[in-house]
């Protein structure tokens, strides 16, 4: 009998290895491919700062993009899996529920009121505040009305409000750059980000990951409902606070540097369930990896598909994610309740 359990665990490890291989491959592709063809040797020289021009390309352009792809993708995948576990709803996701949009609003407000000029930390902190507010209000609404429809409607309200306020702020901004900024905060992109962006986001994201990854046991117990989870020694209040603040930290920091990118957190856990089962705790780490793989693959697509203007990353994830969401909704008529 224990052999069965072992097979289960082994399959989990295999999935993680496959995801890690994919992520590594995409990392290499992200470093090697670009408008200027560089040999692997030149890439390496650039990375260690051997040649000034190569170092500029690698350290200022390609490396930050790949590293941010990892970090943002992992944050979104992990938050999606944790939110689905907490709300016990397979449709939960930071993008759909307006968490990303609210974080974007926080970032825009920091720019609008000039806080971003006062301190470099103002922008990520405001984004984080927006994400926190959105996630907390969703948790309140979803607890009161725990079915899927209630959750989706609450998310719709939160995200509509955030998008409207973001548009208003940018609309009123005298800054001519406002339009391009608006596109970024609403659609998201990994383009033209630097290692300083990575450094700014990393501590918040890391803190969020720790909170989310350590929520696994509690989320597992929540499968049995709130009362049974409490009877198993799980503190529901602290579990909620943990997932909400973890999501706010991870998604807030991600949105602060790349704008709102949706659907990664929805798709990542769904892709893994056929292999790993439905246990929320077991999906957390693999979902982070899958999120990173998805985001880097989408970003590679953005960079390689020849369009007159570079596609926004959020557009690509939405083009893939929205039909997927629709599919889940249609199937859910039977299975979600």
């Amino acid at each position: 009998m224990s052999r069965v359990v072992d097979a289960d665990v082994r399959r989990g490890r295999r999935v993680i290895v496959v995801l890690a291989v994919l992520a590594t491959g995409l990392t290499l592709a992200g470093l090697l491919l670009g408008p200027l063809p560089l040999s692997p040797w030149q890439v390496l020289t650039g990375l260690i700062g051997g040649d000034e021009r190569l170092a500029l390309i690698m350290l200022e352009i390609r490396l930050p993009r790949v590293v941010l792809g990892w970090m943002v993708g992992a944050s979104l995948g992990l938050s999606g899996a944790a939110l689905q576990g907490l709300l016990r709803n397979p449709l939960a996701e930071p993008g759909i529920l307006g968490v990303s949009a609210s974080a974007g609003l926080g970032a825009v407000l920091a720019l609008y009121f000039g806080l971003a000029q006062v301190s470099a930390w103002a922008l990520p902190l405001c984004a984080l505040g927006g994400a926190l507010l959105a996630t907390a209000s969703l948790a309140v609404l979803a607890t009161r009305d725990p079915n899927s429809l209630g959750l989706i409607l609450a998310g719709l309200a939160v995200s509509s409000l955030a998008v409207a306020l973001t548009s208003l702020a940018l609309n009123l901004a005298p800054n001519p750059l406002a339009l391009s900024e608006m596109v970024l905060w609403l659609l998201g992109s990994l383009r033209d980000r630097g290692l300083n962006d990575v450094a700014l986001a990393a501590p918040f994201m890391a803190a969020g990951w720790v909170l989310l990854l350590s929520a696994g046991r509690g989320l597992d117990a929540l499968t049995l409902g709130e009362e049974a989870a409490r009877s198993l020694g799980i503190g529901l209040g602290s579990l909620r606070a943990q997932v909400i603040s973890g999501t706010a930290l991870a998604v807030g920091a991600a949105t602060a540097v790349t704008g709102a990118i949706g659907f990664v957190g929805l798709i990542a856990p769904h892709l893994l369930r056929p292999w790993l089962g439905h246990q929320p705790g077991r999906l957390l780490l693999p979902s982070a990896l899958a999120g990173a793989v998805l985001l880097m693959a989408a970003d590679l697509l953005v960079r390689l598909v020849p369009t007159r203007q570079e596609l926004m990353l959020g557009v690509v994830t939405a083009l893939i994610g929205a039909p997927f969401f629709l599919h889940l909704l249609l199937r859910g008529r039977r299975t979600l309740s």
Partner: protein
Amino acid sequence: MTLLEAERISVDLGGRTVVNQVSLRAAAGQLLALIGPNGAGKTTLLAALAGLRRFRGSVRWQGRPLATLGRRERARVLAYLPQGHIAHWPLTVRRLVELGRLPHLAPWRTPVAADRLAVEEAMQRTDIAELAERPFDTLSGGERARVMLARVLAVEAPLVLADEPVAALDPYHQLRVMELLRDYADSGAALVVVLHDLTLAARFCDELLLLREGALVARGPADEVLSAVHLAEAYRVTALRGEHEDQRYVLPWRRLAAEESGEV
């Protein structure tokens, strides 16, 4: 040895007193049945004993107020089976039963041999070993009920509070589960179980507690608690009674008209 001691428990819900001054005690080796009509407050009382509802009064575990036990310690001492057999995700049966081991697992540690053994044993006892790899959503109602009971048994707690553990089961499994609960009590645990089947309560339980409108109407052995007067007052029914193999059975037979039941 008294394990659980509840004194004058009252629970208010929405301005109404749903449980009113109920006291009970359960000793090691005792299987208590909590009986009473729908809405009598059985589920609320059980949840209060489990520390899941605000209540007035006191609940003690081996003389200590239950509230002073740490969350995890309490979860190892007291296993609670809620009504309804909820699983929000279609986990496999084994994974669900394993959740019963959560109170024993240190953070970040994987289950050890003792945990696996407890899970296997719980599945054997509830007759679900062959369902181990089945997802929960493919099971019948009776199978789900047994899975949830196995989850509770896997805790290996000395005190088990179970809300209608046999409600969804066929006759064979009702008997099987009652025997199992009886064995579990005989091994030194204390159990408080909500039941609707009066014969099962009479045959397998040491003591019956009859609730009506939140208050304890009667407490004691089946003969006393299941008297005609009590059945009329609490349930508004008359019952057939008899004896078979030295055991009593009580079979609700006829409803009483409204005017009869009040003043019998």
